[in-house]
């Protein structure tokens, strides 16, 4: 083994980042780290990259290190790309200047071979024509590709990439993987790559699954899927000790049902069962106030938003019907959040018409009376961190003008129904992301709206909590006749929507049911591939 990570733990004060992680890797291997935000992937990367103190031992090519100081010796062989789009780039430097800088701090010789390699990297990344462009003017995908080739310029033998593809458009993602694949073959380097997308597992040689600051399983994709095989059944009624999601039921006890083919995600459900961390069930009560809902809840005609020369949303048409969940999909910077903000009146509309609940919106006054019918949950969960969950909810209820008695009654009902009642007196920072997500939703629906706008509510949340969240949305739809517009950059979540609208650089490139989309591209095995095709088609 060329890389051995032996019982490594990372702490932030008294908080655990990762505990007792063991990883092994050989030359030429691509190793995948899979798990949710806060599961410990980044912490382990920091330890291996020697940028954070850790406990335990890491041995790379027979050199053992136990601290960042000792890790200095391997840093000339190391390439590390931390998580975050364009994080390691300088906004005011051009593409060429970045490569110069990264080459200079690694003291690379500028021989013929160097220039050949540099040119090849630029070509692979599709940046050869943009060498004079400032980093701040690159798209998200281009930024990630530039970060990657800057990390590769000194031909590292140990490559650490922390979520290089998250939020990046499908085509750039595919290109990133091609660069990586070529690099490992040519340079015989070890690549450790973390990802939030399960579908990328097939591109890895071996996988480590992270959950709750631990590595819960490792092996090839096939081995891992096999681990879940014994516990995966076709969807069936089940009383206790099981989780049902996406046409499959997971149970540790034998069930009287047909076995189903597991996926990688199945393993996270099985793990939750093994650790007895079954999320509390969800039970949504019917609306307290019955109201008439028009058949078309929201209609946008040619909605446009410009920021200077940049067109964030370019003439977008969209309809949201009663009892419909529409997914607004796209990479970072596609214009999803801007669109939702226009619907909410948080950004003025530059061009186009907007109808909400049958009423044309042309002034802020038009919105005022509709506010009680709209629910909104923002990307970063707009919660007050110094108020407890209970106090937060009371505050939001009051903001919507609910009477105290009514407010307390609904808070109690929702906290039980959404299964976070035992956390209600804690501060938001002390509860898991999945719980935070649930009570943020509770805050958005306290006033019983008829339409709900959700901006990336599932981003970074673990598989099980995400599954539960989608179930919750479907229950809401059925019991409340609510309409939901939800944005996400996980293409795989398309299958939980009634209809999906795909945005690409501010333009709508698809608006159809998931089933129709799958039919349109019969060769695509998953929604990921459908979107790759869609993106290619619109190039």
């Amino acid at each position, binding site marked *: 083994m060329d890389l051995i990570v032996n019982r490594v733990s990372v702490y932030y004060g008294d908080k655990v980042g990762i505990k007792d992680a063991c990883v092994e890797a050989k030359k030429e291997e691509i190793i995948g780290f899979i798990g949710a935000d806060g599961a410990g992937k980044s912490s382990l990367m*920091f330890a291996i*990259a*020697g*940028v*954070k*103190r850790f406990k335990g031992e890491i041995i790379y090519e027979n050199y053992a290190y136990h601290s*960042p*100081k000792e890790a*200095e010796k391997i*840093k*000339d062989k*190391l*390439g*590390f790309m*931390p998580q*975050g789009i364009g*994080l*390691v*780039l*300088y*906004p*005011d*430097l051009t593409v060429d*200047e970045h490569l*110069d*800088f*990264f080459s*200079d*701090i*690694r*003291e690379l010789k500028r021989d013929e071979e160097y220039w050949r390699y540099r040119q090849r990297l630029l070509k692979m990344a599709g940046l050869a024509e943009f060498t004079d462009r*400032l980093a701040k003017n690159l798209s998200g995908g281009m930024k990630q590709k530039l970060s990657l080739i800057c990390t590769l310029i000194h031909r590292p033998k140990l490559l650490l990439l922390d979520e290089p593809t998250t939020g990046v458009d499908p085509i750039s993602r595919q290109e990133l993987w091609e660069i990586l694949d070529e690099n490992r073959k040519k340079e015989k380097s070890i690549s450790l790559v973390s990802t939030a997308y399960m579908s990328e597992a097939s591109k890895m040689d071996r996988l480590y699954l992270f959950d709750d600051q631990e590595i819960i399983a490792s092996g090839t994709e096939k081995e891992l899927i096999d681990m879940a095989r014994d516990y995966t059944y076709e969807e069936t009624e089940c009383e206790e000790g099981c989780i049902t999601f996406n046409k499959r039921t997971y149970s540790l006890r034998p069930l009287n049902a047909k076995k189903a083919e597991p996926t990688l995600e199945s393993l996270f459900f099985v793990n939750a069962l093994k650790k007895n961390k079954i999320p509390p069930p969800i039970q949504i009560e019917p609306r307290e106030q019955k109201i008439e809902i028009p058949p078309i809840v929201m209609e946008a005609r040619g909605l446009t938003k410009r920021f200077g020369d940049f067109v964030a949303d370019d003439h977008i048409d969209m309809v949201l019907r009663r009892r419909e969940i529409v997914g607004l999909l796209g990479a970072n910077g596609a214009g999803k959040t801007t669109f939702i903000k226009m619907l909410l009146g948080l950004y003025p509309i530059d061009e186009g018409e907007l109808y909400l609940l049958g009423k044309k919106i042309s002034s802020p006054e038009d919105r005022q009376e509709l506010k009680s019918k709209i629910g909104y949950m923002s990307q970063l969960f707009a919660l007050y961190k110094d108020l407890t969950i209970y106090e937060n909810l009371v505050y939001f209820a009051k903001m919507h003008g609910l009477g105290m008695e009514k407010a307390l009654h609904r808070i109690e009902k929702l906290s039980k129904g959404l299964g976070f009642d035992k956390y209600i007196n804690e501060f938001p920072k002390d509860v898991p992301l999945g719980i935070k997500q649930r009570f943020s939703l509770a805050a958005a629906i306290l006033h019983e709206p008829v339409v709900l706008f959700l901006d990336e509510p599932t981003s970074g949340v673990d598989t099980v909590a995400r599954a539960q969240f989608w179930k919750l949305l479907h229950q809401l739809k059925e019991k409340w006749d609510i309409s939901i517009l939800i944005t996400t950059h996980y293409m795989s979540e398309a299958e939980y929507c009634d209809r999906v609208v795909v945005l690409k650089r501010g333009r709508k490139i698809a608006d159809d049911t998931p089933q129709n989309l799958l039919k349109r591209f019969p060769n695509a095995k998953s929604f990921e591939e459908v979107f790759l095709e869609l993106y290619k088609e619109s190039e």
Partner: protein
Amino acid sequence: MKIGVIKAYMLKEFKDLIRSRMIFLVYIMPTLILVMFGYGIKLEVKHSRLIILDHDKSELSYTLINRFEHSKYFNTKVLDITENEALRMIKAAKADIILIIPQSFEKRIFHKDKTEIGAFIDGAFPLRAMTMQSYVQGVVYSMIRDLMERYHIRIKKIEINYRNLFNQSLRDENAIVPGLIGLVLLVAPAILAALLIVKEKEKGTIFNFYSSPVKKSDFLIAKLTPVFLLHSVNIFILLLWALYLFKVPFRGEFWIYWLTSEIYILISLSIGLLVSIVTNRQIVAVILTVIITVIPGFLYSGILMPISSMSKEAYIEAHLFPVMYYNHIIYDTFLIGQGFEAQKNLLYLLILIFYAALLFIIGSALLKKELK
């Protein structure tokens, strides 16, 4: 030390400073502080509105009035109104001082009886009031002294204003502008040094340093040299403003001013370095730097109040901050010109060198090539 690495980092730093237009901050902020504070702080009071109620109307009282009328510090009016009316004028902010010369003022003085002159001063701004008070006292004392000399009476007590010893023309600019240079050269390089490092921490580009073989010392040299060079230019710019805009005399030697200022910039850089170690956000870095440099740079520097007349605690605090030592040498080069013939100046220069070395060593020891 790897020259290539340092060069690459510095080149990047200069490009970034110019393209992000931060370079304007480097050259506009110091001048702005100097000009704004230089004109804004007025310690002396000119043309204060004085109303004299002369109830004596004697030769002596006319002499006294005459003295006030000839002083540039007072705009004197002799009015024939009641005391209450005069007081009302202070309340209405139409007068700053009322002087009441009592009846038989002259007569009592020549009979060696006790007599009093009433002086009412608008005390809304204590510092201004105190200054006006001392001016009134000065005029009255000097007249009495003349009287005593003329009539051969023994003088018991004379008060001299020490503050203006080396500033005979009593110009505020001479007292304030050199001190402001001490303030600016402490604040500005510290902010820039802190920003250059904290910016990388905030954006995440610091990982390029953490995860590469770049040495800590090389990183520090690359980060701090641009700040040092850029602000070295400010030493000259500020001097030019002082000499030609504020017309402050320069009696000492130029090389002393230059050398001391360069060492002082090193101290400022090191303060910025220390700030960058404890902060992760640019805005916090700026605020923290401003707080820890402006307060000593202003209050404990001798600009507003001479160190020697500070209370004991303040006196000790003033000696803990490097500003006082720098300002001592700078005031000397501008106003006195003793240079290093005065042992104190040499000692203070050594103290400054010690500060620079100490802060830099602490800063570079605390800077870690890893995440906190």
